[in-house]
């Protein structure tokens, strides 16, 4: 008897729940509008606007000094925007910074961890800053250490850990307050491939199991490609493209653009520059002493390239039509390689920035 009364209510409730869930899926947790940061005369971040959906993994991709880290610092309340606003969970990052801080966790390339404290002491210290009740915090620390397989070393000083272990600590530290938004600033920088994979998998796991929204900056195309739902490509402080990895690649493969990997046994710098001068070549990079990586457009592109190389007495050993990678997308849009501009930036050294400073180990 009772059940017949409850049923309609249950259905109604269920409908509301579905509503909430669908709304949540489309709801923006981060809203950035005309965000600008200037260091004296240098504009590090130039009038950028974007939204990040709840539960999304959002990538900021670009060379060092493109403004990724500065953007992240502004979003995480560490730096004040010169112009524009950003909100996280509806809270303004400047006016309601304390509320924002309760919602976020940050993992930066510089590890936020004290080498002279033990793993447990480190987590205890940072956890206590969030006013988490003692018992809850204790349990959470144990869980998190277990999650990254550091339980065995919980009473060892972090200074004795390997870089990979320390980065795991660093990530786990950012999860102490169970953040809704996790900021990762170049989390795999300086890690060996295996540790990089570990961190990547871990981030994915957190995102899927806890619904944590993740904002990740990286100049590693592979990281961005494998992790991110959507990617914003940043260069010189501006967002020049923002879409899913697949859609970004369509910019290349959708048109008549092709990527050719050309191996020439007797490759000379002259040959590279003559190919570069061709009308059909959008971007040419030399990968090693025998291989060129060419982005071309047009129907006669293959022919004209082969002709040019042959005319210069080049011996073609192999030629392949490649699937576009994010690297190619970047190259196509900006006309320069990620690595190129990274080198330029480090030489220029303008404005305070993170990522270019030498690593320091105490």
């Amino acid at each position, binding site marked *: 008897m009772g059940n017949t009364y409850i049923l309609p209510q249950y259905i109604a409730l269920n409908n509301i729940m579905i509503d909430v869930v669908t709304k949540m899926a489309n709801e923006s947790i981060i809203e950035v509008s005309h965000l600008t940061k200037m260091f004296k005369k240098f504009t590090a971040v130039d009038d950028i606007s974007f939204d990040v959906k709840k539960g999304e993994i959002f990538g900021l991709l670009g060379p060092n000094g493109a403004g990724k880290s500065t953007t992240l610092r502004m979003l995480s309340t*560490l730096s004040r925007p010169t112009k524009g606003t950003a909100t996280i969970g509806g809270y303004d990052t400047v006016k309601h910074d304390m*509320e924002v*801080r309760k919602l976020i966790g*940050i993992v930066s390339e510089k590890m936020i*961890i*004290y080498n002279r*404290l033990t793993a447990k002491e480190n987590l205890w210290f940072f956890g206590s800053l969030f006013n988490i009740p003692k018992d809850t915090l204790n349990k959470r620390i144990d869980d998190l250490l277990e999650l990254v397989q550091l339980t065995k070393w919980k009473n060892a000083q972090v200074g004795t850990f390997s870089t990979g272990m320390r980065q795991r600590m660093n990530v786990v530290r950012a999860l102490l*307050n169970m953040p809704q938004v996790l900021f990762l600033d170049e989390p795999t920088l300086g890690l060996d491939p295996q540790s990089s994979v570990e961190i990547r998998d871990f981030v994915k796991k957190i995102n899927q199991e806890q619904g944590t929204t993740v904002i990740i900056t990286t100049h590693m195309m592979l990281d961005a490609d494998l992790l991110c739902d959507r990617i914003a490509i940043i260069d010189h402080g501006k967002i020049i493209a923002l879409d899913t990895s697949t859609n970004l690649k369509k910019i290349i493969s959708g048109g008549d653009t092709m990527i050719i990997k050309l191996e020439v046994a007797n490759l000379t710098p002259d040959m590279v520059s003559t190919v570069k001068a061709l009308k059909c070549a959008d971007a040419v990079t030399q990968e090693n002493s025998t291989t060129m990586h060419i982005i071309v457009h047009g129907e006669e592109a293959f022919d004209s390239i082969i002709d040019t190389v042959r005319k210069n007495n080049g011996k073609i050993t192999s030629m392949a039509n490649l699937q576009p990678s994010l690297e190619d997308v970047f190259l196509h849009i900006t006309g320069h390689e990620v690595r190129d501009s990274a080198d330029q930036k480090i030489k220029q050294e303008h404005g305070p920035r993170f990522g270019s400073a030498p690593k*320091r180990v105490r």
Partner: protein
Amino acid sequence: MTVQTILHHSFRIAKKDLTELFRNRLGLVLLIVMPLFMMVMVGFIYPSNGTITNLHVGVVNEDAGFNGVFMSNQAFLPGLNAINSQTHMLIMTNVSNTADLKDQVQRGALEGGIVIPSNFSESLMSGEQGTLIIVSDESNPQISATIQGALKGVFGAMGTAMAQQNVAPLNATNTLAVVQPLAVQTQGVVSGHPSYFDFIAPGIMAMTVMMSVMTGLPVAISQEKEIGTMDGMMVAPVNRLSILLGKTIAQTGRGLIQGVIILALAIGIFGVAIQGSILLVFALLLLGVFSFVGLGIVVTSFTKDQETAQMMMMTLMFPMMFLGGVFFPIQQMPWYMQDISKVLPLTYASDALRKVMVLGAGIPQISTDLIVLIVFGIVMIAIALPVFRKMMTR
């Protein structure tokens, strides 16, 4: 954000900082060795009165005598020996002539000399003033002054003895009172004989504790900024004041530890006696810290990295050390330097501490010092906090 949360966070941060400090073994050793060095160096190198002994002095006796009487050998030299056997100030060597004496002083074989001229006996016997010549090493004013002082003492005693002989026929009951009707007797505020350590120990204590905050704060904060851990505290919902307060508490703790070490060394090894209240001593140290915190924060705000912070502290520390009356009484300085030292909080802290430790003063006697320290501290903190806030959210 309640006051309680702010305090809770600052204690957490202070505890974390101190844990790090205690895990740093070498740092801990240096923490103890530094004040020890400071005490030993300063205490032993700067001489207090009458501490110079065993000076090598040449004696040239050119006295030709008068009517067969040699005043030099019969009166002066025995008198000098008698006095010297008590004080051990001089080690005397006979030298043949003045030229030889000067030569030996120049070579460094002797540190000074006494020349008894040929007319010494004649002058004295014929009722004139007897003259002695002191040859001193002008390149070392300290030693030269000591020899002069020692010889003047001997001459004075000898002169008095001779005068007493001369007035003996007057049948006075106390010949000394006739010759020297006035005598000086020094009486300190407290009993005993305070040494130079009594002077410097309070000063060094004040300096170490206050400097630890002024130097430690910028270094601790800029170091955390540099290695990136500061961001970890900044992205937590923690008031900036808590970070500042926590760091200050930790640095004060470090400074007080050093202060206690100095105090223990001063009492145990250098025989310094504390006349006043030990509680007042610690209260004064804390007040000194308070007056310096603002200055430390200002420096913190202006320095971007650890290296600059350290250099800036060194630059500020040296003038303070010498102008703050830690090693020398400020009364010894030229007037314009005295004026500078009057605006340094260290001057008042070390003065107050010295009055309490050496003279046994209480709060009423050091009220001026206290007021200056409190006002200075409040003014500096009022300046520092807005500056710090601005720095933290660049």
